[in-house]
């Protein structure tokens, strides 16, 4: 690899008519790194992935996959990428075992290697119970969760420089979600670069090394989770739950606020730990006056930063203090 990155995206731009789906997007994944690509529906995540695997041609910019120019030579680039798409993998008529072995064989594994690797990943994901059950075209045979895990295993079974996972945990139960994240972590430890496409911030925070937040086609934030939280040990998050029919702007905050995000009925305030006592006292008063339903004080989370960065909150953009920290 030329520069050591398994994925290097620079100034990537793609338009659909007058809509700019990707606007000068930059992204870099090194071997062993798990990078989360966060964004709402329509933020441009799928458009970005589609260009990496050669389904869409960019209007501008460059994509290098394992040192290969993915725009000039999409076929070679595709050999370097294993992708779990957001839609289900077409495994009707196959068992999870058969599907995972086929995926391994298509990536150059020998029959025996593919069989062993399929067994191993079935162990890791604990799907042996359904391993030899056939998926029926009517959607029967295997549940959506098992189909999703099979699709994940198909992307993760063979060693490839870059693994792209698009919402891999949809429909998956909590215990196997944890197993899936363990495999994702293991892929990174084995030396693959992983691009995790999701809108589930809480889950992403646990596994990713780096995060890129897309909003309306533009990168609005990038960095490690702690960098993105924009906070350190001195910061806390005060979450206030507003009444459904009585949304209060809550402008009379008695302590300095470094970031304020409004997400539907919740107001998330990032405050300095020194002001915790005063803030709690204020929140208790609000609650006793019936202006809020309740409150909670806790560590700053990535969700706050994400919501602030994507301008999710109606009034976030009008609050000047938060922009400086994201």
């Amino acid at each position, binding site marked *: 690899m030329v520069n050591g990155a398994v994925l290097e995206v620079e100034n990537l731009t793609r338009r659909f008519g007058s809509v700019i789906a990707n606007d000068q997007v930059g992204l870099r994944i090194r*071997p062993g790194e798990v990078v989360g690509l966060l964004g709402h529906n329509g933020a441009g995540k799928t458009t970005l992935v589609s260009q990496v695997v050669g389904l869409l*041609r960019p209007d501008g910019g460059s994509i290098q996959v394992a*040192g290969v120019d993915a725009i000039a030579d999409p076929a070679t680039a595709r*050999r370097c990428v294993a992708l779990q798409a957001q839609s*289900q993998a*077409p495994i009707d008529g196959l068992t999870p075992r058969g599907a995972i072995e*086929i995926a391994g064989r298509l990536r150059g594994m020998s029959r025996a290697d593919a069989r062993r690797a399929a067994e191993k990943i079935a162990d890791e994901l604990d799907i042996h119970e359904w391993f030899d059950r056939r998926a029926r075209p009517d959607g029967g045979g295997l549940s959506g969760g098992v189909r999703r895990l099979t699709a994940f295993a198909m992307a993760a079974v063979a*060693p490839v420089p870059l693994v792209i996972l698009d919402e891999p945990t949809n429909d998956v139960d909590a215990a196997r979600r944890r197993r899936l994240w363990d495999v994702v972590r293991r892929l990174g430890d084995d030396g693959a670069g992983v691009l995790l496409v999701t809108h589930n911030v809480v889950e992403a925070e646990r596994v990713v090394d780096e995060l890129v937040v897309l909003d309306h086609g533009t990168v609005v934030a990038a960095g490690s989770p702690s960098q993105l939280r924009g906070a350190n040990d001195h910061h806390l998050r005060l979450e206030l739950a507003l009444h459904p029919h009585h949304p209060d702007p809550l402008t009379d905050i008695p302590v300095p606020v470094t970031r304020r995000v409004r997400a539907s009925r919740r107001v998330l305030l990032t405050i300095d730990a020194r002001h915790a006592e005063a803030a709690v006292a204020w929140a208790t008063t609000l609650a006793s006056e019936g202006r809020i339903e309740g409150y909670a004080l806790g560590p700053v989370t990535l969700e706050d930063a994400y919501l602030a960065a994507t301008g999710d909150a109606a009034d976030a953009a009008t609050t000047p203090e938060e922009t400086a920290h994201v």
Partner: protein
Amino acid sequence: MSELTVSTSPVRVPTGVPPRIGHWTTYRTLLRWATAQVGAMLPLVIVVQALLAAGIIVGFGLLIPDIDTPTAQFLATGAPTVLLMVVGLVIVPQGVAQARTSGTYTYLRMLPVPRPLLLLADLTVWLLVALPSIAVAVIVAQLRYGFGYTFDWPLLVAAAVLIAVMATSVGYAIAVSLPPLLAQLVSQVLVFFVMLFSPVTFPAAQLPTWFQSVHDVLPFRPAADLLRAGLLTDAYSASWRDLVVLLVWCVVGLAVSIRALMRRG
């Protein structure tokens, strides 16, 4: 029980581009995949073919009172062509349109394989689905009219394969070029055109002259005549012109399909 576990998993992922794998291995693996997908609906397809064969050979026969042997032969030897066209121009586009709607088509295009091999694997499977229809049609005709066939095996096999590939690739081309809903509509219209307005189960002489010339460049009459020459070799003969027309349609269908598979939007 040890308190400390030190894991020293070696780095398993090679750096750089994974090597290209052989086309033959890729093709065989894709074929296994495609067979599983289509195999699930295979029994249904064969039942539909048998019913269609009966419908054309027995049902169309009822429209003609006191049917004589040459007419019965013409009708019965046209039926296999209708069945091949139904598989290629109706069932294949429906399958592909469904694959496009469900995301399967996109999924397959993201695989690390040369995309023409995807088409080749699909064509192979559809060929295996389509070819039994000839036997089905021959058996149904035998049961109904009881006339004898005079097979020209090499011609029959070559014509059957060519027609099945032509119909499948044209059907595939329709399905990948048009929006899924429109593709399904076009394929429905085509089947009526083949069954009722194409000189497949009746002689071309029954059509107006201008419409006969249209059918000289469409693939349906050439397909029917070629297959008929393979089934009743003492009464009908093959024409090179028909062969060329079919080959041209086949090449166009393949070219359009491959282009659509390779295209980046």
